[in-house]
């Protein structure tokens, strides 16, 4: 009988490397990860980029629910876990097995921080994501709340309902709500930073300076077989 007994494994051996950036909106993490991607591609290293809450399949299925604007802390958390699981099962894990450098713009820590701020039980949330492989490195972009908020509000004046944390009833003013919400997320990141051994990047540094730091940290992680591809002209 071909009864499938595969259990969820915690530490699956992989040839690839998982690199994660975390931080609140406006901390500069996405810019840095995109620059890192360009660099890896230019060096012919097989790379895959994945973004939080971006599964098209999950989006299609949940569109209706989000439109209703009736998500609670638990459904919100579970739908994000679903999105993550979909990207994890179909992209992240197989690509790591195949030897890719997987770049994740936000990972399980975003779920921990947001869900815990929304009142979900920390043990519950962490156990849901326990199937996720531990990244090789997590860059945490640390930036004072005012700088991050200014960056965001300068470019994109309308805040979405959940993005502003309006479901938490922190304030009737979306901007004020957003500020409080983000500062609570920072608190969660700060505590995760120690327990999860984040590599802290000063988000107030110049872009080039940060990128130099990020690249040198990543360079050390690349295994000899990947590092040896540096300089070759053929794309894998």
């Amino acid at each position, binding site marked *: *009988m071909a009864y499938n007994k595969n259990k969820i494994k915690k530490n699956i051996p992989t040839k690839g490397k998982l690199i994660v950036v975390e931080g609140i909106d406006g901390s500069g993490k996405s810019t840095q990860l995109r620059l890192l991607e360009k660099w890896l591609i230019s060096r012919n290293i097989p790379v895959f980029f994945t973004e939080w809450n971006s599964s098209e399949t999950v989006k299609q299925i949940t569109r209706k*629910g989000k439109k209703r604007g*009736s998500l609670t802390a638990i459904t919100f958390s579970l739908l994000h876990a*679903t999105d993550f699981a979909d990207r994890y099962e179909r992209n992240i894990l197989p690509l790591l097995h195949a030897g890719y450098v997987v770049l994740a713009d936000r990972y399980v820590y975003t779920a921990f921080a947001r869900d815990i701020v929304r009142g979900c039980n920390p043990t*519950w949330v962490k156990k849901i994501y326990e*199937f996720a492989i531990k990244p090789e490195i997590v860059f945490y972009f640390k930036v004072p709340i005012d700088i991050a908020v200014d960056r965001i509000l300068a470019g994109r004046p309308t805040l979405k309902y959940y993005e502003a944390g309006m479901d938490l009833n922190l304030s009737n003013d979306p901007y004020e709500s957003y500020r409080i919400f983000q500062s609570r997320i920072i608190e969660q990141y700060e505590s995760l930073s120690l327990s999860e051994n984040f590599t802290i990047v000063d988000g107030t540094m110049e872009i080039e300076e940060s990128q130099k730091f990020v690249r040198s940290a990543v360079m050390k992680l690349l295994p000899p077989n990947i590092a040896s591809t540096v300089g070759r002209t053929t794309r894998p």
Partner: protein
Amino acid sequence: MTRKASFYGHAIPYLEDVEIKGRFIIIEGPDASGRSTQIELLTSKLEADGHAVLNAGLRRSELIGQGILEAKRSFVLGRKTISLFYAADFADQLENKIIPGLRSGYVVLSDRYIYTLMAREAVRGISRSWSRNLYGFALKPDLVFYLDVDPNELVHRVFKKNSYLDYYESGTDLRLSDNMLESFGIYQTLLRREFQRMQKRYNIISIDGNRSIIEINQDLQKRIDDYLANLQNH
């Protein structure tokens, strides 16, 4: 009458201290075990006896609805993704239907509950402790019945009902056998074993589902009536 709701694990944060008045009864069992017929009969009788009854069940929420079925048919989703989708859908159902119903004093009759979801996940190799944690926010029901039907008998009922074996109810995704009938038999046996395994932990009452509709109904109705009468006497 009013009492604090009790949960299996970590409750939904803002519902931890929710007060409920109604009673929560689950009918579990495989497809074609007669669940929906029994629920109809029980509902009519309970209503005739003056209870307000609310029917609930898996896969009825407006959050995800049909989308999940379509995605499953096109085989695009992984197993954990499907589990989490069902959990989200269930959470929506619990918060928006079951708990409000119980707060207003309804007898909520649910066509299946988390046990079916956990059994399906377990036979697909998902860790039981992971599923238990996932559904920790589920409210503990007052009564859980499992319509236990011998898989050999079940197959005849399925054929009578549909004249074909459903892809998922046969566990075809598990590639248990190339023969669909054999696959159905193995899959249903595995699920049945999971229910036996869960029986003690979740106080699941096994009901002999090989009998006639009327016999099963009398059995269920008596157990429910006794339970409700007992509450009145206390």
